[in-house]
């Protein structure tokens, strides 16, 4: 089972105070949490890189968490921000299928995760933008392949990706 909100908060307070053992546990738990957070929206081969990227961001920005606020919404905001950046960078991946390796989890964890999940961002996009981003940026199809699959023109696919990413970027904090 992945650590819950109070455990994360306790570990982070100790980490901000310089406790290396607590920090090791915190980052390890954060790694598990992030792997689950990203699993349906990032090809398996890219998850490790993205998780490492977020761990580095947590390290660099650890002073920006305030103990009067919840920890997981802070972590999720950083994870979303890095994910949108990642989508911008990735044009094509050799992976064409996403993993479906659902780990067992208790209902409370699922509820917390669901409230902040990346799906909440996708529902804010138009279906055409959502399709274009999923096919090209996540499944790794080329623009031509995505155009053939969806029936949209290639230029429309590009426009939908561009506008969709811009919208995702604006929604990182707001969509909950």
């Amino acid at each position, binding site marked *: 089972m992945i650590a819950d909100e109070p455990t994360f908060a306790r570990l982070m307070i100790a*980490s*901000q*105070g*310089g*406790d*290396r*053992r607590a*920090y*090791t546990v915190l*980052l*390890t738990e954060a*790694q598990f949490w992030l792997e689950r957070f990203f699993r349906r929206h990032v090809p398996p081969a890219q998850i490790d890189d993205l998780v*490492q990227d977020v*761990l*580095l*961001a947590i*390290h*660099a*920005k*650890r*002073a*920006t*968490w*305030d*103990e009067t*606020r*919840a920890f997981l*919404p*802070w972590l*999720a*905001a*950083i994870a*979303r*921000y890095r994910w949108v950046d990642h989508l911008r960078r990735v044009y094509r991946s050799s992976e064409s299928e996403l993993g479906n390796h659902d780990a067992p989890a208790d209902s409370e964890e699922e509820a917390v995760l669901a*409230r*902040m999940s990346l799906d909440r961002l996708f529902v804010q996009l138009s279906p055409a933008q959502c399709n274009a981003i999923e096919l090209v940026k996540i499944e790794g199809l080329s623009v031509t392949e995505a155009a053939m699959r969806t029936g949209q023109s290639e230029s429309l696919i590009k426009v939908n990706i561009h506008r969709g990413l811009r919208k995702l*970027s*604006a929604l*990182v*904090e*707001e*969509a*909950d």
Partner: protein
Amino acid sequence: MPPRPNPLIAQLAGELEPVRPLRMRHGLALVAVATMLTIAAIALWQGLWSGPANGQAAAIFFIANGLIALVGLAAARAVVRMAAPRVGARQDGLRWLLAALAILPVTALLLMALEGTVGRHDQATDGLNCFIAGTVSGIGVAAALILWLRRGAPVGPNVAGFYTGIAAGALGSFAHGMSCPFDTIGHLGIWHVAPVAMSAALGRIAVPALIRW
């Protein structure tokens, strides 16, 4: 078999140093100091208008400058909070406040169209001076907020840039407004609100590149 430890985690833990958490009140204090210094500089440079103290200022002077200051404070507060990201943060209240501010130029333009009020009470050159001075006066607040955001972790750089511009323009215009003796709706509604719009556009264009991380 226990999972293999992540070498990156071991490295980051090895580098760990204690940090002082970013406190929102420190960010707000930074903005307050920047605003006070701006007002002090304007007082030394141009002198403050004595009309409000002598009872000579019209009601619209207090209403317009009060509303502009309120928008500046609300935007600055939003920007300060953006340094500490969190899913679920919204800026809906600020949007309504901006809509309230828009009443000033809309009223000024309506009166200008219906009665020619702006033309009677205001000289365009004075207005232009206030527009430029109000915009330039926001530089201190903008610098303070950019500094704060660079220390933080803003996850919406475009929105943060836009609101940084609003805060800088509004607080700059408010600071300059303390020295301006024109207290008509035509002057205040257009030339003292225009710096807010100009700074918002500048902030949206220039700030994101400075705060991206």
